[in-house]
């Protein structure tokens, strides 16, 4: 009860603080980190949704790349408005997910994971192939324009000019919005009958079929929704960085997305959020020891898998349980119990 009220009060306060960030600071470096954290969260909560159906994708970044190329090519080669191209980037990533998901999601466990790895590499090679100069091959695409300016009642929101003196202010707001929408949608799924169906499939897929759940439909749904958001995040990323190549979003990133979710904890939606926060901020904090970063990250992943299967979010509860166990033991020793 108390917890529910606390969340109800804290959440709007947190969102207000996040919305004030460009006013609080005009430092482009910190703003950049926050933008990357927001986009990481979009990827991570999506990956967790796939995990709740009992499947592991290690090619999630590839769907970000699909979104990025879709958005960029639509804007630069087909003269689409960015604000139309961005949702289409999500849609294209989702369509690819459905086409790929139907034949492959039947396969469970490590086999599906390996397949998604192969798929990610395949998609990367498709972009490397430079279809008649379309994708720029290994060189990639440079000079990707900023999102088109938005005109609202006489005001112009110009991404190049920034806002509140913060040059990256509008990008930050866009990333924040994407993140909030993704988290909200995933949260709604979690609480719904569909979310319960996902968990049922993960826990006992044969039984899920016995009670009448069409398990393929739900696995494909989770995969497609997650990839839709990956596509959006990828689309935004390319426009923000102004550059895109086949190595912009790769297997390496996919592994990081898994780390966000697993180290944070996949049981609740807060897990991947905390994981994304930690792992995106960590390399920045460890800048002086950049070469150690993969080792530190991998160690954290191992520690989490070995000692904290519920992830970081389960830590307070475990500490509480440990304390209670100690107190109970003391009580027995002192003859109070």
């Amino acid at each position, binding site marked *: 009860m108390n917890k529910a009220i606390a969340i109800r009060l804290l959440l709007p306060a947190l969102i207000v603080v996040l919305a004030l960030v460009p006013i609080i600071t005009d430092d482009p470096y910190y703003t950049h980190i926050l933008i990357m954290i927001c986009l990481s969260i979009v990827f991570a909560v999506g990956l967790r949704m796939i995990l709740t159906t009992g499947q592991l994708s290690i090619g999630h970044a590839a769907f970000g790349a699909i979104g990025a190329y879709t958005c960029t090519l639509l804007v630069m080669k087909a003269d689409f408005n960015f604000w139309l191209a961005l949702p289409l980037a999500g849609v294209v990533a989702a369509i690819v997910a459905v086409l790929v998901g139907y034949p492959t999601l039947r396969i469970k466990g490590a086999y599906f994971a390996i397949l998604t790895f192969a798929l990610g590499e395949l998609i990367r090679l498709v972009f490397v192939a430079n279809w008649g100069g379309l994708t720029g091959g290994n060189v990639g695409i440079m000079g990707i324009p900023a999102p088109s300016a938005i005109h609202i009642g006489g005001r112009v929101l110009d991404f190049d000019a920034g806002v509140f003196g913060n040059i990256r202010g509008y990008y930050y707001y866009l990333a924040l919005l994407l993140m909030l929408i993704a988290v909200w949608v995933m949260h709604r799924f979690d609480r719904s009958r569909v979310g319960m169906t996902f968990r049922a499939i993960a826990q*006992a897929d044969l039984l899920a079929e*016995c*009670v009448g759940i*069409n398990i393929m439909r739900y696995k494909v749904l989770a995969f497609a929704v997650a990839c839709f958001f990956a596509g959006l995040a990828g689309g935004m990323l390319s426009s923000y960085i102004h550059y895109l190549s086949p190595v912009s979003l790769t297997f390496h990133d996919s592994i990081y997305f898994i780390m966000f979710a697993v180290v944070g904890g996949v049981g609740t939606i807060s897990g991947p959020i905390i994981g994304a926060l930690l792992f995106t901020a960590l390399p920045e904090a460890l800048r002086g020891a950049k070469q150690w970063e993969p080792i530190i990250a991998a160690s954290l992943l191992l520690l989490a898998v070995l000692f904290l299967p519920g992830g970081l979010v389960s830590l307070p509860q475990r500490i509480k349980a440990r304390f209670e166990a100690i107190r109970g033991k003391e009580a027995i020793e002192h003859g109070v119990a």
Partner: protein
Amino acid sequence: MLLSLKDVKVHYGRVEALKGVSLEAEEGAIVGLLGANGAGKSTVLRAISGLKALTTGEIWFRGERIDGASPQSIVSKGIALVPEGRKLFPFMTVRENLRLGAYLRKDRSQINKDLKEIMEHFPILEERKGQQAGRLSGGEQQMLSIGRALMSKPTLLLMDEPSLGLSPLMVTEIANIIVDINKGGVSIVLVEQNARLALSLAHKGYVLETGNVVLEGDAQELIDNEHVKKAYLGG
């Protein structure tokens, strides 16, 4: 006839698990399927439930051909499976497991009524309704598994080894539950290695050996049969 299988053949890869099984279940009856490990008993249930495709043959339920239909549509036609090994959704509560049993039903108020009724029928489930299913004892899990299947309001219940791994006391209790369910108007196909139990409950029985029906008859006939005595009832 409520259910009939006509010359059903099923393959796992190149291995023929059912080599032309024909059997029938009358409305209101308990039909026992006996046989040793690997005789194909579970495969029969999987085939009826739509979880395993037939190679050839036909399955009819209430005058309608159901082989080739999806597991979902077979559940909605009124056939529920209690799978072997007390399969549950282990990290969900007892209540959630029961509710998932009614997954395909839309009549919300009736579902709540049935939920109450099942909790009354299995008081231990009422007591443990907020607990994770994976933490129940074996007997409790079996009751939950049966209760879950009943939540789909089946006319035919397929039970796969309900006595497996339970204490003798619990076996008796499950046996009583099976009789009760049947008296409530649900027909049952009961797969059991415990032949004595199956034949004491069933009206009719079939004996499966390596994918073939080798014997069929009324339960009493089978109890008196020399081969059954020797091979399944321990002399």
